[in-house]
């Protein structure tokens, strides 16, 4: 295993946005191997857009995004497939396949990308769902379980192939505090014991303080990264009053 500090994702000089409309200009940052990295920002700040660029769904308007050394922006088919296999993604809404049971959702990547036989895949799928507390719901369809459970099943699916990098879009939004804390413990365990890297888009400050190694904070008005570092330090001693305000959950002062 490489030294824990070398970057596994390098976002270099990226202009984020859609259809020629830039939301963020010239953003650069590194995500280090094995760390829990959180992207923070107000609503509409471009967090989700940035995430879409990083997972290769939409190309950025400019710049490069290296995933473990290869640029996902310019990669051709074969290389792109291999880059996609390096990470798992949990989408904000869960994005489970509605016609498949929870277990079948988790089994799908295992069936497509490994040569394991049926029983073995079934066991792995059950274990992934047990990790998120859903082993008693393997045969349920997504529509038959609650929103929070769908989200947890989506995390299980993202972890199915034990990817090196896991992208989570608002993982704890909509979860009760106990489940959310259980999810934090799971993320910490995977990061610390397996060396998995987590890139999390989140708003949940308690969870961020509990698990994040490093955060970046982006802002639409200033069109870029306004703070980077340890969330506790930023809360206590950031030179930027807006950043301190964000971490302390103080309301915005509206002009009179």
């Amino acid at each position, binding site marked *: *295993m490489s030294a824990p500090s070398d970057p596994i994702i390098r976002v270099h000089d990226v202009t984020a946005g859609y259809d020629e409309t830039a939301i963020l200009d010239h953003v650069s940052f590194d995500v280090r191997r094995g760390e829990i990295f959180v992207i923070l920002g107000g609503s509409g700040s471009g967090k989700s857009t940035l995430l879409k660029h990083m997972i290769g769904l939409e190309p950025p308007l400019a710049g490069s995004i290296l995933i473990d050394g290869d640029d996902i922006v310019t990669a051709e088919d074969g290389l792109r497939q291999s880059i996609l296999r390096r990470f798992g993604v949990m989408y904000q809404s869960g994005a489970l396949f509605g*016609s498949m049971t929870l277990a079948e959702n988790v089994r799908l990547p295992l069936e497509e990308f490994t040569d*394991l036989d049926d029983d*073995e895949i079934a*066991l792995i799928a059950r274990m*992934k769902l047990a990790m998120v507390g859903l082993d008693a719901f*393997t045969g349920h369809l997504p529509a038959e379980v609650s929103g929070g459970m769908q989200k947890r099943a989506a995390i299980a699916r993202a972890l199915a192939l034990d990817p090196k990098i896991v992208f989570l879009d608002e993982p704890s939004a909509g979860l009760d505090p106990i489940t959310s804390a259980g999810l934090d413990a799971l993320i910490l365990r995977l990061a610390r014991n397996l060396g998995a890297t987590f890139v999390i888009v989140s708003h949940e400050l308690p969870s961020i303080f509990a698990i994040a190694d490093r955060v970046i904070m982006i802002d639409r008005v200033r069109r870029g990264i306004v703070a980077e570092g340890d969330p506790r330090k930023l809360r206590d001693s950031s030179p930027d009053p807006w950043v301190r305000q964000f971490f302390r959950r103080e309301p915005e002062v509206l002009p009179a």
Partner: protein
Amino acid sequence: MATLAISETADGGRVLALAGRLDASTIRPLWDEGRRAVTAARGAHVVLDAAEVDYCDGAGVAMLVGLMQQGDPGRVEVANLDPAFAALLAQFDVARLARDLDPAPPRRPAVDEVGVVAATFWADLRSLIVFTGETTAALIWALRHPGKVRWKDVWMICERVGADALPIVALISFLLGVILAFESAVPMRRFGAELFVADLIGISMLRELGALMTAILLAGRSGAAFAAELGTMTVNQEVDALTTMGLDPVRFLVTPRVIAALLMTPLLTLFADLVGLLGGAVTLHTFSIPFVTYIRQVNGIVDFGDFMAGFVKSFVFAILVAGIGCLRGLQARAGASSVGDSATSAVVSGIILLVIVDGIFAVVYYLLGI
């Protein structure tokens, strides 16, 4: 790479020495070999020695769990696993994982299945009748309060149902006229009776085919679209939002669609009739029958009653197709596939209803001598 070395102990047990990297790409042969070794130990103690394992991810842990599940609890145990990976293993209850906690329900026997289908059919018929009542009530309400109808929606839907359908209705009815004329003119010519093909085209297009083809196209285009649109709204809880705002979904969503279909379908039918006749004229022209003769012949055989027979039907067809499309949409449950099911069922039940109602019309017209 990963390897497995098996050694037998004095008491007939086994020590399985695992080494290397255990992940989804390496465990396949090891898992098989391990399973055979555990079986060969016949109830004696088996130790999975993981001292030389330098990486073990979720798939590797799954293999360890899988081997531990074989035989009685405690017979197979893991030793010397790196604490980092042991923590991954420790989060699982091996005995609990051995069972499928949420098995698929057993299949119903065939007799039950038939009963369920019959009950579903009956329930569906009931909901159709209830919905027809609701729609009729909503239409009467709209007649009495025309100011409260969302006319902006109605015009927009009119454009999609009516104007946008013109090209396809024109194409289908023109070809229908051409084909009908051609297929009948060839044998009729043997008797020198090509001219009477004009009678056939005139009566069949006006009384039957103009209205029916337009309605079938409407079912395929707009019925399916209504079902998909309302189905997605139901799945996204937009219909729930209307209900809790105190707005009746039928009045709000179904009425504008049914009104638009009611306004547009008769016009499309009229258009289809004309284009169909034109198609026949073009074909017969190639059989040396001039347009003037064709028109005179059609005029002689078809009267206003024939035209009205088709035209009146088109109003009923419009209500049927638009209504069933909306009903299927509102019946959607959850998920992408249910929206697809709604659209399919809107088209299928729409066309079935069209054919049944068309048959009823035929009988009624016969009895009334129309």
